[in-house]
């Protein structure tokens, strides 16, 4: 309740003028929590603080169980982090996949899936052409390149994965 200083009428909290005489009411005092955090001039002196004997505002260090904040770092809550988070995949995985299925190892490399599917489709096309040409002997010569295609695709996938590992792994040929 806000009591009018002129006529003594009790007014509802928050009203600016007295409902009886129309006099301006004094503003109600702010809540205790607002005053503590917002009105720094009315803070009690901090002379008891051994780190700041002159008083005033002292930044408080975070509790020891809080992680340190680094600008630019993707801060993920601890319950969402996995051991492999931010860990690039070892290039041997896409290399092995591309050795058996040329190009498909690039599906494990960001932004290279289209290239990988294209390489796989081209390899399938090459094998089909070689199979057809086997009946006119030339296809045998094309088939001796098949293992080479597989190993070249494996090396290429290794290098693409290494280039996406932020320097953790080094490409071996396609730099």
């Amino acid at each position, binding site marked *: 309740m806000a009591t009018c200083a002129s006529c003594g009428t009790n007014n509802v909290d928050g009203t600016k003028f007295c409902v009886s005489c129309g006099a301006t009411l004094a503003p109600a005092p702010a809540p205790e929590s607002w005053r503590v955090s917002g009105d720094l001039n009315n803070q009690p002196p901090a002379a008891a603080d051994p780190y700041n004997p002159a008083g005033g505002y002292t930044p408080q260090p975070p509790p020891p169980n809080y992680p340190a904040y680094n600008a630019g770092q993707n801060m993920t809550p601890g319950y969402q982090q996995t051991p492999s988070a931010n860990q690039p995949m070892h290039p041997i995985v896409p290399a092995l996949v591309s050795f058996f299925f040329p190009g498909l190892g690039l599906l494990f490399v960001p932004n290279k899936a289209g290239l990988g599917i294209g390489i796989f489709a081209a390899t399938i096309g090459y*094998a089909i052409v070689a199979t057809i040409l086997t009946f006119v*002997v030339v296809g*045998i*010569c094309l*088939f*001796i*390149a*098949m*293992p*080479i*295609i*597989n*190993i*070249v695709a*494996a*090396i*290429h996938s290794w290098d693409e994965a290494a280039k996406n590992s932020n320097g953790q792994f080094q490409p*071996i*040929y*396609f730099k």
Partner: protein
Amino acid sequence: MWAGGWWCHQLPARSPHLWGAQLPLCWRCAGILLGSVALFGWLLWKKRVPPLRMSLALALLLPLDVLHAVVTGGQGDNARRLLTGALWGIFGTSLCLRFVKHAAGRLSASNTPART
């Protein structure tokens, strides 16, 4: 065996046998595969491919061996198939890597807009 059938004719007379069982690749294809894997290890170690002229000379031994067998109608021997296959695996892969790198370089250069 089906995995080897993707690459290889798997003729029993030209394939290695282990304890009476035929292995999935013939001698020549086994040589190619071993040579390719050897080149992969070499690349991991040295980070460079063998010289171009040496690669051309040694990779051509396999096509010459095949051509010789076709022309003469000879059976050849499995040791020669394994050796020429391994050389093709090493140096043919080296040539293929050079070609792919060269083609990729030209492709990226043509996609890069010229500065004015």
